[in-house]
């Protein structure tokens, strides 16, 4: 019965809609076959055609988009090596119109290209979406217009399909389960971790981590010191006190050990000028003196040289060009304010060490032979690298702050073996670029390296670089180096404040009583302060010399200069301050707790931006062009 009604239904439907039957199994269907009405096939054909056209259109658009995507240069055209090279070439040949023209052209092309690409993709996406929509609609209409009813065969006996497919299904589910296990196992094998995976491992690992930087780090154990021991023994405290071994002398304090230096001279007449020697290459570093030798450096964008002068007569004993094997090919940019050789050299009495604005660092023996040279990499510094070097025993200390923002994490502090140039330890510093120089102090039998940068004053253990304490005391661009005197550390910079810190803290001491006092007036931008047990003298570039009580921070007096600008840091000789102004004028002042008096005035006759070195009866000062020896 069912079969009859089925057949009837099928024929009925076929006749009504005129559809071709698909699986025709009876003769009667053949005879009853009716041609489909014309208008349906007409519409169907139209739908197929428009689907085809829309599909083709979409495919073309899609292909164009993919082509555009593939064509896109892998590298930002404004960051390609060629373009960068051309731009830095323009830096040095500012008048070269040809380079300027091609820089402008490439730049314009890249920018236009960017906007063209964006427009292309936006329009392409819309066209593609539209094309696909039309295509889908057309295809669907075509499919609907051509829709046919199936003509299932009649089954004499029903087939038990379900038993069949569920059986296969169970097995395939099992296979899937197996596959999932395999995938899991593969993932397990593929992702291995280096981190501890059970609590015991974790404890051991954390243990090893804190033990990894013991106070006697492997780098400085006696076993590792070089064999040439007699030569490599670091200079004694007495030797250091007698000489002028670094920027601003012993401790970086700018305090002369000798009071018998002249307070008047005349460059024009030669009065009290023992000698005056031209320095072949420019540099803003200051002279360093050890025994009978004076060291300083000079550099331009291609060449870096270390000079050794004889204290008697001022003859250049030797000059050696620095040849670091991994020196960057490119000169540093943005050095207008500091030059290519701002860092002052340092010496341990056996070797002299020099650093330059391009990150090259080298050690020389006293005969002028380069012992080692390496590059710390081109510093990212908006005014040029300027931090001077410091020594701790046989270790050369390099404060290598760089980067516009601390977030770039480029800044480092290196302790380098003076004999070999190998890094003994290094620590990352959470600071941007700075222009201060590190000092080594010994406060209550704790030796510390003090570094200054925005915003942290950070103290390190010189043996292993472990941070001892830090204080949030600075802000912005830091020029003045820290000074330690009378048990207090004096730090500060312009636009922030001046702070005295007791350097016996641990951790972050910013909000603790280790901050003894702070003050806001007369903040220097470049010049380092002079600090005695009682007084602090601050010298901003312009305006006033300001004096504070070193223990309390009480503002004692201010001394106003007329128009003079100072870059050179002040120095203390006995009870007198020696101030070298940029134009070459030298002010010699006496002071007490109530006022300062100008007692003498001299002139160098040329511009001066460096700090003097004081020895027995002599002042060594580098002018813009000459090295002067002032003495009787």
């Amino acid at each position, binding site marked *: 019965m069912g079969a009859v009604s*089925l057949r009837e239904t099928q024929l009925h439907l076929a006749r009504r809609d005129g559809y071709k039957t698909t699986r025709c199994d009876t003769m009667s269907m053949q005879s009853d076959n009716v041609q489909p009405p014309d208008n349906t096939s007409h519409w169907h054909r139209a739908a197929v055609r428009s689907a085809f056209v829309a599909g083709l259109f979409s495919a073309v658009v899609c292909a164009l988009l993919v082509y555009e995507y593939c064509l896109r240069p892998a590298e930002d055209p404004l960051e390609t090596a060629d373009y960068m090279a051309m731009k830095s070439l323009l830096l040095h040949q500012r008048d070269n119109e040809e380079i300027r023209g091609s820089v402008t052209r490439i730049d314009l092309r890249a920018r236009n290209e960017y906007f063209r690409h964006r427009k292309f993709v936006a329009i392409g996406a819309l066209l593609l979406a539209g094309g696909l929509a039309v295509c889908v609609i057309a295809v*669907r209409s075509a499919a609907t217009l051509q829709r046919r009813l199936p003509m299932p065969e009649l089954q004499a006996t029903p087939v038990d399909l379900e038993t069949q497919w569920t059986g296969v299904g169970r097995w*395939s589910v099992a296979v899937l*389960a197996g596959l999932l296990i395999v995938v899991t196992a593969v993932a397990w094998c593929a992702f291995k971790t280096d981190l501890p*995976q059970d609590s015991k491992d974790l404890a051991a690992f954390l243990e090893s981590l804190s033990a990894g930087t013991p106070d006697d780090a492997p780098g400085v154990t006696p076993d590792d010191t070089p064999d040439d021991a007699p030569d490599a023994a670091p200079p004694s405290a007495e030797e250091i006190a007698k000489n002028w071994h670094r920027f601003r002398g012993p401790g970086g304090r700018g305090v002369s050990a000798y009071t018998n230096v002249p307070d008047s001279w005349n460059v024009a007449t030669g009065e009290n000028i023992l000698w005056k020697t031209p320095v072949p290459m420019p540099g803003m570093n200051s002279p360093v003196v050890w025994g009978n030798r004076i060291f300083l450096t000079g550099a331009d964008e291609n060449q870096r040289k270390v000079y050794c002068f004889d204290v008697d007569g001022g003859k250049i004993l030797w000059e050696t060009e620095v040849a670091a094997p991994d020196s960057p090919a490119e000169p540093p940019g943005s050095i*207008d*304010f500091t030059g290519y050789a701002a860092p002052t050299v340092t010496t341990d009495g056996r070797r002299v060490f020099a650093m330059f604005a391009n990150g090259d660092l080298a050690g020389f023996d006293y005969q002028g032979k380069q012992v080692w040279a390496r590059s710390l990499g081109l510093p990212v510094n908006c005014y040029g690298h300027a931090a001077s070097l410091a020594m701790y025993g046989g270790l050369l200390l390099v404060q290598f702050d760089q980067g516009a923002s601390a977030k770039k994490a480029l800044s480092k502090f290196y302790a380098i073996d003076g004999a070999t140039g190998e890094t003994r330890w290094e620590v990352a510093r959470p600071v941007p670029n700075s222009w201060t120089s590190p000092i080594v102090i010994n406060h209550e039998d704790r030796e510390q390296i003090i570094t200054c940068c925005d915003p942290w004053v950070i103290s390190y253990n010189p043996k292993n670089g472990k941070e001892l304490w830090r204080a949030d005391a600075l802000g912005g661009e830091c020029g003045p180096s820290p000074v330690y005197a009378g048990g207090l550390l004096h730090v500060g910079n312009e636009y922030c404040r001046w702070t005295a810190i007791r350097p016996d803290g641990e951790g972050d001491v910013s909000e603790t009583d280790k901050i003894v006092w702070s003050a806001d007036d007369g903040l220097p931008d470049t010049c380092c302060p002079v600090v005695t047990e009682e007084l602090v003298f601050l010298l901003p570039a312009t305006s006033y010399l300001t004096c504070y009580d070193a223990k309390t921070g009480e503002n004692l007096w201010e001394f106003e200069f007329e128009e003079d600008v100072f870059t050179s840091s002040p120095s203390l000789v006995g009870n007198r301050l020696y101030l070298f102004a940029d134009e070459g004028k030298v002010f010699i002042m006496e002071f007490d707790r109530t006022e300062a008096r100008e007692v003498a005035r001299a002139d160098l006759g040329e511009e001066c931006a460096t700090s003097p070195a004081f020895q027995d009866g002599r002042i060594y000062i580098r002018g813009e062009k000459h090295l002067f020896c002032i003495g009787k």
Partner: protein
Amino acid sequence: MIRLLRTMLPLMLLLIAADVATAQTVIPIPRFITDYEILDVQLTQARDGRWEYLDLAAVFVGLVLASYFALVRRSRRGLFLLSIASIAWLGFWREGCVCPIGAIQNVALVMSDSSYAIPTVVVAMFVLPLVFTLFFGRTFCAAVCPLGAVQEVVAVRPVKVPAWLDQTLGLLAYVYLGLAVVMATTGESFLICRYDPFVALFRLGGSFNMLVFGGCFLVVGVFVGRPYCRYLCPYGAILGLLSKVSKWHVKIPPEECIQCRLCEDACPYGAIREPTVDQTATRRRHGRRRLAALIVLLPVLVGVGVGVGGLLKVPLSRFDFTVRLAERMRFEGRMEEEVQRRVQSTGLSGSKIWGEVLDEYGQEERTTDASADFRVSGQPIEELYRHAYDRTMHYGTLGRWLGGWVGLVIGVKLIYLAVRRRRRDYQPDRTGCVACGRCFWYCPGEHARQGWIAGPIAGQGDSRL
């Protein structure tokens, strides 16, 4: 050296307002002498939240209409037009967010982390289709979900996927559901949203990979009906389960089935079940024994799943920011040790050795942005490692939960495939049926109901009795 600024200094020193000086700005803010007025900060306000209520209303209306079209009017055309509307509104206009599929994760997260803020709209968006499904079947999938609608529209030439394969691949949706829920509870990753294949299409842009991924789904969707809905969609998996007990459900014939078999191949989603044939007594006995064995097997499978899932600890932990950072720091530590070692043995300069070591380790730089930031932050590395360890252990637990869930799903599916239900008529498989209404047209009963063919065909159905 800061003479760059010095040109402006003398005047500016006077200009620094006392209050501003306390701030950490490097350059003081000038006080202007002309009548220049300092601009306001350009802020943007969040989009009007009422849009979302409108979306919710749209989904509600859509669900009502879809249920009406599918169950009462039995109008395929209505459903189709509703699909188009859904693609236009929820898809292209609202760019595919908020959607109930993604809301699974928000709900999962709020269950595990009470501090997580979940908007009411998202909860309502999640619950509404579930409630509708309990009463009307998967009418949400039929025409309201824009993802389903897109696939519905492109399914032009669907081929029949064998039922056994269809059932097996359908399990993947449950696996994906488990994975997505487990990962969502960590608050780190919303995988469903991250790998939504069609959202890039709705936004007419996105990452190249996601566009290709979505494009592939569309192309496959022309030949395999609704591949995402059937084999991946985690929400579809939940709806399928609820649909089993729905009060009403779409029917193929409007009245009685006459067993004409015309609809046999009508469903592009393999959701039409044919009448069953009675089995022989032996087979039935076999079947019963198999069923008993599989029920016993279920807990075993769950156990195996828990065991195997434990292996996922490390792979899953890679989704975690802290763990990735700790891994990176450890890796950088290894590089540093290597450099130290070589510097001491060769005496070459550190920077040169770094170059070599970076090359050997396949790295371009010593640090990544994240590790550089961590180093600057000054946070103790011990804390990082400890935290990463805790997180990793947590992922181990999650992995075991996931494994157990997958074991359960597989076991239940095996049991499902071993249970025999008796059917006299052609019926939609309630789990798989998305109520799209394609089968209506194939049913002679429907043609009679619409008055396209003469005669009360429905009455003939009685002849079977």
